[in-house]
């Protein structure tokens, strides 16, 4: 069901850096791996060599009883200490490069973690969107990270380190995306039942595409064209969907659930859980707890044709 979704996205390990921040951390990580491997190999060789060479022989006398050696003990402390000091300064430099002080820079985007979706607000515009977060390529962006309920954590490995979202606190993260593409990430602080399905998709676009997207996103919702979708729009308002969800340009103005103004333009639904298509949407509207147990959307008892109407309406919200 979800296999198809992940075919066209960029690989997203911590080594697939797509931002200077992630690249800095990758550099330090590789240095660390080299040093750590050297130590590990040393220990493995010493352990094997000593175990084999000094294995007990039959009728052997007690070996020489050595209780210590000051010089060797000094080396045992000195060499690791030097390595540790080296890595301390390397990591200070990286920290300051990756996460410099915010100064009085105001955030370019405010992302709030909810159980279980991401809400993104673009200051200076009227845009609020959810889950698929569009960002421009080549611009140094300051993200403000907040939480609405419990602690969440923003992590897109290809774009750099993670940062917690803590209720009552404002956290910040810098990111400069190198090239367009879709970057996968996930909530990395356990946040309850559906922590697993709190995936992140960052859609990085060239400045031109991004401006286009901004313009489209700022507009109100499409007015439904056919009768089925129009019936869905009416149902949406009547069946209290609108008390939790907002569809800009209509009376629906709820703020607890994800903003659905341009829901139809998203590739995935339920925070990256499945493809956004009519079949999945129908299953979800029939029984949310069956599809995503624990989700805060209550079950409404809809007739089959009501679900078809709602699905048609939501799909047209491009």
């Amino acid at each position, binding site marked *: 069901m979800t296999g198809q979704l992940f075919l066209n996205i960029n690989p997203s390990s911590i080594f697939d850096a797509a931002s200077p921040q992630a690249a800095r951390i990758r550099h330090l990580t590789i240095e660390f791996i080299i040093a750590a491997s050297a130590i590990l190999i040393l220990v493995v060789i010493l352990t094997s060599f000593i175990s084999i060479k000094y294995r007990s022989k039959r009728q052997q006398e007690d070996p020489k009883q050595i209780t210590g*050696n000051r010089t060797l003990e000094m080396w045992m402390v000195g060499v690791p200490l030097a390595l540790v000091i080296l890595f301390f300064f390397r990591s200070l430099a990286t920290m300051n490069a990756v996460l410099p002080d915010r100064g009085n820079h105001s955030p370019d985007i405010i992302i709030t973690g909810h159980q279980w979706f991401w809400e993104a607000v673009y200051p200076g515009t009227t845009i609020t969107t959810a889950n698929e977060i569009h960002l421009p390529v080549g611009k140094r962006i300051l993200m403000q990270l907040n939480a609405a309920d419990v602690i969440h954590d923003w992590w897109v490995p290809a774009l750099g380190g993670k940062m917690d979202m803590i209720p009552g606190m404002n956290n910040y993260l810098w990111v400069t995306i190198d090239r367009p593409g879709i970057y996968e990430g996930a909530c990395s602080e356990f946040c309850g039942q559906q922590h697993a399905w709190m995936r992140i998709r960052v859609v990085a676009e060239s400045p031109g595409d991004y401006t286009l997207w901004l313009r489209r996103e700022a507009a109100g919702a499409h007015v439904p064209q056919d009768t089925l979708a129009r019936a869905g729009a009416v149902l949406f308002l009547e069946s209290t969907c609108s008390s939790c969800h907002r569809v800009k340009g209509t009376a629906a103005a709820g703020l607890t659930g994800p903003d659905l103004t341009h829901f139809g333009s998203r590739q995935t639904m339920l925070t990256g859980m499945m493809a956004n298509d009519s079949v999945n949407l129908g299953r979800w509207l029939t029984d949310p707890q069956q599809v995503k147990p624990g989700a805060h959307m209550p079950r409404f008892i809809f007739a089959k044709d009501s679900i078809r109407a709602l699905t048609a309406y939501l799909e047209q919200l491009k």
Partner: protein
Amino acid sequence: MDTILVPEPEESLPSLSVSNDQGILQWISSVDHKQIGIMYLWLSVLFLVVAGIEILLVRLQLAIPNNHFLAPEVYNQLFTMHGTTMIFFVAMPAIFGFTTYFVPLMIGANDMAFPRLNAFSFWTTFFGGSLLYFSFIAGGAPDAGWFNYAPLNEYNYSSSPGIDYYCAGLLFAGIGTVTASINFVVTILHYRVPAMSLKQMPLFVWMILINSFLILAAFPSLNAALAMLLLDRQLHAHFFSAAGGGSAILWQHLFWLFGHPEVYIVILPIFGIFSEVFPVFSRKPIFGYSMVIGSGIAIALLAFGVWVHHMFATGLGNTVNGFFAASSLLIGIPTGVKIFNWLATMHGGAIRFSVSMLFAIAFLIEFTIGGLSGISFAIVPIDWQLTDTYYVVAHLHFVFIGGTLFGLLSGLFYWFPKMSGRAPDQRLSRWFFWLFVTGFNITFLVQHALGAMGMPRRVYTYPNLPGWGVLNLISTIGAFLMAGAVGLLVYILVRALNKGAIAASDPWDANTLEWTTTSPPGLKNFDRVIPVKSTRPFRDYKRPEDADWKRQEVAYTEKPPDIDITQNNSHGE
């Protein structure tokens, strides 16, 4: 040979008059440190099996992507209970079991300073564990992870009583832990045979002494946090809820102010066990006795200054993070040098590959892996990438299993003949070793890669991203190998208890006082104790010409007396 009076508690021990034919009642009413030690160990085995089954279910759920074997709420309860149980009711009781059993024996005492308090400590721990598990039938187990972050642990987000039972259970266990530690300190400081100076104490006893102080300083912070959380949940106080003005981050500070020392609390005694095992099976004294003690003390002190490295991603700022990065990097040194102490102990020795020593040697490599991956969390930017991923899961299991559990198993095979008077089957025990170590590495090595590939921890399922399914499947297969090995271990132990070969009182040609008494020791440990003039009194006694305290710079010229103590019925081959 001059004898030394054995110190005993001031008051008579009620249990000494109770005969063994009262069966289970005798165990329940016992205040004998050996019986309490054995009960601690069985408690640990029981919970090991329970928490093991929990994690097998979890690994089954994770075997393939998008699995529907477990509902998320069940999954969350299972992994929470697995972690909580393994730390508080497997690792701690096992360590305390060996401690109550062997500390008095190793210092030549007949019991703990406060035998009744000793029983109280055990039963409070037992009761705490029972209370934690009672939650399953009381409406749902705790489901917010073993470190139980606020505000997810608040009533609004977890309304089942599970977290209340978590608080109550851990408070009880915490009281048991603290009282036991007080008992250990008093016993060690007041009940050593008079001739044994602090600088002649076995390293296991030294590590327990340091560890007990660590427990006394660290546990109150957890107890305070648990009390506050109970007040929040039951009386609607506002400590951890941002909505009421409280602070979610305060929980993390209090928890990790306990939690990071706790990590060292379950490894310092293990360092003690290995510092007994390596010298005995290499037939050499420990390399750098005072260095091992010194680094133990350094760890205990530094342990209180590193807790924020669990919180590098909470946005505390580069200054705070930099400070704690420095302290966290520093604490790696006293931990790491010990590996070289043990390697140097083996160097030039005559190594006997008993199962106990096999675990010790395997530990050297596994713990180095776990230690090095631990260092990557002290390097803040790497932590920003890897914290809260499967890389952490791999790291912590390499230190908890490759460190703590390997140490406990090494100790088990080392001391089992002493405790039971029986020797476990040598061939089966070796099978167990290889099966367990293989399963362990299969399970956890791949998880490093999963973390780097972006898999967060504590997810009940995951999308079918390239490579994720295969690596998780491998990990699950490894987990079942380990489970099979643990089953084999229980079989080995039960079989050995019933029809194992009778063990000699000193099967390993060991160095310390516990081996001078019978196997198992009688109700009264010692009538008299051999003289203690060095850290290896029993060896001095067996090889008087080559005694540690006699040796200046002169190497011995004669062959040591031909007491054939290395002969031992468990060495069947």
